[in-house]
């Protein structure tokens, strides 16, 4: 195949204070190609992309686009050069209409006025290209995340892009929506566009890309054709360790006579989950499986008092528990890592130290402060125990990678010595190495007698870790399976068919 590269990045180096973020990295992209960029968090994927989009300046190396050397100065500048980016979090304006979002900043004008008719017509045409027949004059927030994502892509594509960068576009999409996105990507590819695709979902990499490039710790591991590498090889290359050693995890062993730590009897709240009962033994881990919106998160939030349950009752450690707000739950030995860690978990501008000490401090009340020395001790202990990658405890948590942020949130709760720990999607959007580590930590805590509720969309990790699996569907508990005997197929069929299939298992 002739080396007909649309984009060529050679010997890229970027130096951040204290670390070399990228060290002599090569990357190339052909026209009409989907090229996946892979690596763990902190491997340098985002830095490479930011270098291309002009957010970060490179310290050495060259970037050539269609044979001409370019120096992107800003995202705006990169866009003018034909490099468009769609980020993980949709960064459009939810209160503007779909059409406005697509054309904001470059509205077609007619006689000195914005030409609304053209805007709406062209937006409609554009969305039709994406097989979406939607009302473009409705506000963006009216539509699902998937459609919002499509609108973001439509906007990126409509600016005559030669290169489209998709940074984790699928993390909040369901299977059908992902398929829709892939169709669009393939069409764009057929039109000769070069697409850089960043994702944590390895299946998707194999489903859609032509080539892939792996980065690790700022170094280039290699670029491979999609048929020249297997999934196991890929993971091994990304992590730099063998898969087996990572996933060699054992379920928690629960003594048959272990006392019940948490018993929820028919708890429910209007608009949340009507009626759910859960038991959890000391040192046990139960997994919550189910689709997004099946009531998993709502149940967790009720247990922790983030949303108050209005019917039913709950016992913690044998005593009746009144949980009206998170503070009550904290005081009674519960802990909760929320699903959306950016929105509900981290306090972005505070340091790692302050973030870790927060829940312990909240329990003591503000009049009994931990001294800075005690806070440092706590922070250092967990930075080491959890392997949080940071130069020191004073770094802002907002500046850490997703996996490390999750570890800090976990540390915040581990520091409170909880009896019951609820983890809502603790492994979402973080790389495979960190994922395995969080699972290991979870199981270690079970070993220490903590009872864990583990919510995840990834069935394989639910099955790998859980003593029991609770399957949720349409805001109801439809089945409770034994961890040793349950399989992905069984869970999937229950989710698909509902309670009928579950009868024999419960």
């Amino acid at each position, binding site marked *: 195949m002739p080396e007909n590269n649309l984009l060529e990045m050679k010997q890229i180096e970027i130096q951040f204070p204290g670390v070399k973020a990228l060290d002599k990295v090569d990357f190339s992209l052909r026209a009409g190609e989907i090229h996946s960029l892979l690596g763990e968090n902190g491997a340098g994927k985002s830095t490479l992309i930011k270098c291309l989009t002009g957010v970060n300046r490179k310290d050495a190396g060259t970037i050539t686009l269609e044979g001409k050397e370019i120096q992107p100065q800003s995202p705006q500048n990169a866009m003018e050069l034909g490099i468009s980016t769609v980020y993980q979090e949709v960064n459009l304006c939810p209160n503007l209409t779909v059409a406005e979002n697509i054309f904001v900043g470059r509205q077609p004008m007619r006689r000195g006025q914005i030409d609304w008719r053209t805007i709406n017509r062209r937006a409609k045409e554009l969305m039709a290209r994406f097989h979406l027949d939607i009302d473009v004059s409705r506000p963006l927030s009216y539509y699902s995340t998937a459609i919002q994502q499509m609108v973001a892509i439509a906007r990126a594509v409509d600016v005559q892009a030669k290169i489209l960068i998709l940074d984790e576009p699928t993390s909040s999409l369901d299977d059908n929506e992902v398929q829709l996105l892939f169709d669009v990507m393939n069409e764009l590819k057929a039109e000769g566009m070069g697409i850089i695709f960043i994702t944590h979902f390895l299946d998707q990499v194999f489903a859609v890309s032509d080539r892939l490039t792996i980065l690790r710790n700022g170094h280039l591991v290699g670029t491979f054709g999609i048929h020249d590498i297997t999934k196991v090889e890929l993971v091994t290359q990304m992590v730099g360790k063998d898969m087996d050693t990572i996933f060699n995890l054992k379920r928690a062993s629960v003594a048959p006579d272990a006392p019940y730590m948490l018993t929820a009897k028919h708890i429910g709240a209007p608009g949340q989950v009507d009626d759910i009962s859960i038991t959890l033994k000391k040192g046990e881990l139960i997994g919550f499986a189910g689709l997004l919106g099946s009531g998993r998160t709502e149940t967790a939030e009720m247990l922790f008092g983030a949303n108050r349950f209005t019917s039913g009752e709950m016992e913690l450690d044998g005593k009746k528990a009144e949980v009206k707000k*998170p503070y009550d739950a904290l005081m009674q030995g519960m802990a909760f890592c929320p699903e959306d860690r950016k*929105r*509900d978990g981290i306090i972005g501008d505070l340091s790692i130290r302050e973030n870790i000490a927060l829940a312990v401090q*909240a329990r003591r009340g503000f009049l009994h402060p931990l001294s800075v020395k005690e806070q440092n001790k706590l922070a250092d202990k967990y930075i080491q125990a959890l392997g949080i990658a940071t130069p020191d405890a004073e770094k802002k948590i907002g500046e850490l990678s997703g996996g490390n942020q999750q570890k800090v949130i976990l540390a915040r709760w581990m520091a409170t010595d909880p009896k019951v720990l609820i983890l809502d999607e603790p492994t979402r959007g973080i790389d495979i190495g960190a994922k395995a580590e969080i699972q290991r930590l979870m199981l270690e805590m079970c070993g220490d007698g903590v009872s864990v509720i583990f919510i995840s969309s990834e069935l394989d990790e639910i099955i790998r870790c859980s003593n029991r699996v609770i399957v949720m569907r349409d805001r109801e508990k439809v089945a409770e399976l034994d961890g040793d005997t349950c399989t992905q197929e069984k869970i999937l069929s229950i989710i698909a068919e509902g309670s009928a299939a579950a009868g024999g298992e419960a």
Partner: protein
Amino acid sequence: MKKKFDFSVLARSKVTWAVVAEALILLVCLFVRPDFFSISYQPTTEMLYGNLIDIVNRSSEITIIAMGMTLVIALGGTDLSVGALVAVSGAIALKFLRWDVTIYNTPGDYTVYPFILVLVVPLAVCTLMGLFNGFLIAKADIQPIIATLILMVCGRGIAQILTNGKQFTTQYSPFRVIGQGSFLFLPMPIIITAIVVAAVALFVRKTAFGTFVEAVGINRKAARLSGINAQLIIFIVYALTGFLSGISGMIYSSRIMSNDSNNAGLNFEMDAILAVVIGGTSMTGGKFSLLGTVLGSIIIRTIVNLVYYFGIASEATMAFKAVIIAVVIVLQSEPVRNYFAKHSKARQNLVSGGARG
């Protein structure tokens, strides 16, 4: 080895630029009128006099309020009612000093009700009004700017009602001490301010209160899910701000030995917010600096004094103030600070590189 001092950190700090701004303004004063800095001792009042003293003295009312305002802004809110509360505080104090004006119709060195009531009731009422703000914001979830607008508008009305729309005067000497007395050769307001600043600073930094305020200001939901009682924090902050407005109001009315429902504390909310912003606390909430706020308040007063001292026409005062504040704020803006930080870093590298070579 001694750790090398990193100037770029200093250059990135907003407080540094507040110091630079104040120094520059004073430098201008020094050039134009060297006697701006003269300080003299007045034996009859046992007080030091001079522009510098006067600046700190006159900035007291704003500095005290701005301590509370810093926390309010760190929570991501604003409190527009502080100026009105200053008027309320003064009105209540004078009400107690002169209760029934038809009987006590000539002002003199007396108080109708015990002095302790004159001191305590205005502060208690202002604290309650602060709690009312806190209730609207924490419980009813009303935007702070709207919630506090209520008392901003009707606070002065309440002050008018309390005093039947009249302006009372008093000559009660213990009351005079608050605003015009002296202690350790310094005007009493400076002493009161120092105590307030120290108390607030100790409260927020020696307990975990400051961290909780920052946590709630940065991400209220995450703070709540971490077990912080965000509503309680909001209540305390607004109540404290009300209380501090009350103190400020006492100083103000003691200076004029009168209540003035229309003009007492007028535009104080704006000056207090400005002091906080100049001091480097972001209006979006989060990290705050009490020291910065004190500086901010002093900068504002320095400008006013400079205008008076140089005999700039009083009509031009506001415009002049606006120009200087615009310059200060631009100096503190992100791009400018980053520019200087980069610059100082480059120079430092040059210096250390040269030393090595």
